[in-house]
């Protein structure tokens, strides 16, 4: 095998001719481009829609089905709905930031922007979501004294246990999301080090 750089260039050049007939039709690329754009948008919108539906569902439930009278319960409802609202706003900001990453910028700039984005995602998935989960849980448990006026203790235990199971599932999904963001951050850092020769 030739190892001189000019010889390597020759092999490289002769390799270019072998791709002439293997191109995908332009119409198919355009079709796939449209589908990809829609898919990316769908994933982001779906998360947002789920959060908004939960917020409205809870709001309607507390307004029409279980209107609370005690101050403690009212504070609890405010904590639950407020924490969910903050999560929705942050999700929107995250979508806005992801759209700002321009892949036609230089590799270094795109990598740096991607780093900022994933760092924010890590913060949202980590500290912010955990804090929101804690505030939400505190809010939920603040409802239990008034709840217990209408339900017997067995049902109350069931309600509390099911909440704890749900919180555990959310906790596990937070952990997996943080790991994913950490992996992306490490890769971006590695690419930046390679780029800058550090």
């Amino acid at each position: 095998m030739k190892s001189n750089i000019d010889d390597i260039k020759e092999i490289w050049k002769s390799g270019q001719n072998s791709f002439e007939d293997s191109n995908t039709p332009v119409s198919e690329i355009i079709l796939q481009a449209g589908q990809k754009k829609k898919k990316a948008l769908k994933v982001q919108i779906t998360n947002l829609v789920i959060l908004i539906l939960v917020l409205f569902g809870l709001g309607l439930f507390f307004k029409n089905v279980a209107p609370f009278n005690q101050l403690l319960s009212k504070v609890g409802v405010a904590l639950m709905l407020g924490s969910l609202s903050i999560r929705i706003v942050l999700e929107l900001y995250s979508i806005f930031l992801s759209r700002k990453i321009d892949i036609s910028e230089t590799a270094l700039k795109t990598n740096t922007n991607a780093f900022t984005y994933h760092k924010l995602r890590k913060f949202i998935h980590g500290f912010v979501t955990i804090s929101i989960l804690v505030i939400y849980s505190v809010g939920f448990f603040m409802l239990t004294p008034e709840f217990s006026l209408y339900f017997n203790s067995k049902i109350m235990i069931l309600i509390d246990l099911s909440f704890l199971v749900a919180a555990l599932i959310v906790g596990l999904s937070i952990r997996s999301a943080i790991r994913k963001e950490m992996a992306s951050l490490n890769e971006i850092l590695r690419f930046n080090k390679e780029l800058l020769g550090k």
Partner: protein
Amino acid sequence: MVMQLCLGYMKGEHELAKDLSQEVFISVWNALDRFKAQSSYKTWVYRIAVNTCLKYIRDKKNKLTISNVEISEETRDEELSPTKQFDTLYQSIGKLNEVDRLIIMMVLDESDYALISEVMGISEGNLRVKIHRIKKTLKEIMENEK
């Protein structure tokens, strides 16, 4: 240009390279309305190709299984068929790190240093040093395959 870049980046794995090159074309199409004519089309397409390649590895790191194909006795022969020569070259390039792979492929494509520096976002001085080192490493890799 794009397909060959992807092939080198994916260590000569044709199916993965085809998938990646399609990803690049899709990204180019979706970014068309952002082209500001501040750089040439070639630089612009290269930037998208390089960024898509880096993102592809980042996103699919755990799912990708690129075989680290050892170069066989047959491919060590001096009289290699052109196809074998390309494959050996792509596999040798694949032994470099991701960023070095992309830079050396632009060099092999005879892109000038100003263009490569504009694509990667590093100074020409830094690039020169880098290219010198990459050429040396690639030469060593290919000599070891002899």
